[in-house]
């Protein structure tokens, strides 16, 4: 096993945080992000025995599972999500110090803007800033590397405009 792929424990420890951040940038609460992240790693753990490193990198494989899980979440909770997103500046429940610590993270507001971008722009930004190359982003999004770059840059400009608009 060692020659083919890293131990699952390595993936878990190296990518739990990044997968969580990727998911968190797209959903509206830490609780949802935790649920989806848990589902991602549960699924990945069960499927890792069948994973073949020659087809894709473990990281791209993990992000593919995360992407599918996030899509499933939106399908299941689409209406609820849209309602949540229309409620801007929702007060945070700071009942748990550890949750408060997480929610205090510096650029929460920026990720909220990311979450409101069109789906493919949002995805390209979240994948790119989760550490994937444009080539990997393209593979995951079923488009070319150049198309992934274009989506990303459009997303970046839309994000800037969204941030500006709120500041006006």
């Amino acid at each position, binding site marked *: *096993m*060692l*020659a083919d792929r*890293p*131990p699952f*424990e*390595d993936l*878990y*420890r*190296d990518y*739990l*945080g*990044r997968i*969580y*951040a*990727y998911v*968190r*940038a797209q959903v509206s609460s*830490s609780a949802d*992000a*935790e649920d989806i*992240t*848990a589902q991602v*790693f*549960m699924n990945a*753990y*069960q499927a890792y025995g069948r994973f073949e490193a020659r087809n894709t990198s473990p990281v791209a494989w993990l992000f593919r599972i995360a992407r599918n899980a996030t899509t499933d979440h939106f399908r299941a909770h689409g209406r609820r999500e849209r309602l949540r997103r229309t409620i801007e*500046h929702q007060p945070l429940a700071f009942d*748990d*110090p*550890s*949750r408060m*610590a*997480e*929610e*205090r*993270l*510096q*650029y*929460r*507001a*920026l*990720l*909220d803007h*990311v979450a409101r971008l069109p789906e493919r722009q949002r995805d390209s*930004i*979240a994948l790119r*800033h*989760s*550490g994937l190359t444009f080539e990997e982003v393209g593979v995951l999004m079923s488009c070319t590397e150049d198309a992934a770059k274009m989506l990303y840059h459009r997303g*970046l*400009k839309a*994000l*800037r405009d969204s*941030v500006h608009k*709120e*500041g006006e």
Partner: protein
Amino acid sequence: MSEEEDLELLALQRQLDDAFQTTRPRPAFEDELWLRMQARRPIMTRLREGVAGLVGGIWEAPALPSGAIAIALIVLLGAGIFTLGRLHPGGAGSATSGLSNQDGAGKNFGPNVSPEYGPLPVPAFGTAPGPPQALDRQAVFQGPVTLTWTGHLDVSAASLPVFRYQEPAQSDADRFAASLGARPSTEAVQGGLGLYAGKDFTLVVIGTVAQPAREPSFNLSELKSISSPSADPLALATAYLSARHLMPTWPYQTEVQTTAGTVRVRFLRSFDVPSQGQVALVDGAGNRYGIEVDIATGGRGAFETGPLPMSLASAGYPIITPDQAVRSALASSAPPTGSPSYPAVRLTTAEIVYTLVWAGDHSFYEPAFLFSGTFTYQGTAYVKRVLVPAVDPSLLTH
């Protein structure tokens, strides 16, 4: 695209990097999820791997809290108690890498040591706010390895200072911003202490980030270029920081990294420690950090981020001996035998470092031993680092 737009997008990308790198689940989530996953594994698989091999091999202590290890042991012992005789004997690994009080760690109290802050929080090692693909980083191996120590660790001090700061309030951030000539923006910053605007710059001040730990910091976007007597990146970065009176007041070493679009100049922080000289500050993964200045291509503006200037108090705390530190580092080794076989790493260097530990209203810079060794695995060169808290374990809260 105009210069201003170019810079805006650069700053936005940097903010996104920070946002994604600092967005992490609450500290206990990693352990909780792992235990849930373990609980769902087929029972025979768990038995085959054995209690000792699993606990010693999977987890690279000290990242796993002892409570979670205890729960894992209960789960696994509950499943494996009847077949213990058949478990492979390779599990020499201890369940934790921390030293217990029985190690005699309390012998080092010196006459001048006054642990006046009481028991300290245990540092959370293994996580870093920085991206794994950061420019300078050697590939750091996070997985289990078998460890040996072949270096020489000579630390004669029986105690070291622990530094403490009080969490800044919004009024502190306002004062800092005012000292730079910036005024509060009407826009609120969720999770931050304040957003400010000055002539040709914007400033965001944030408080301590708990996990991965990062001290209160400023994030300043320069919207105009600066005149510098030299195009040298270090001179430019120094010019930017000096113009804002943000040059470090602490000892530092500099480092310059270049990519296609950006030059990054880093002022890596150290602490002046009596009897030890300058001791580096590292994050939970052992990476040095401090103030960073990103300079856009052609020097058209910059992005500066670094620790908010704060006053530090200090108090002496007894530390473990070098022998205890080595034992503690080696306790995180995976079992030397069994399947799978783990990479063998020789730890060859060790040094005292400081690492930030969030503790609410006050946070601490605590000393630690940083062990490291390089090795090659599947054709790639890695560095393995092991951090061990230096403060006597009897003065750490678990």
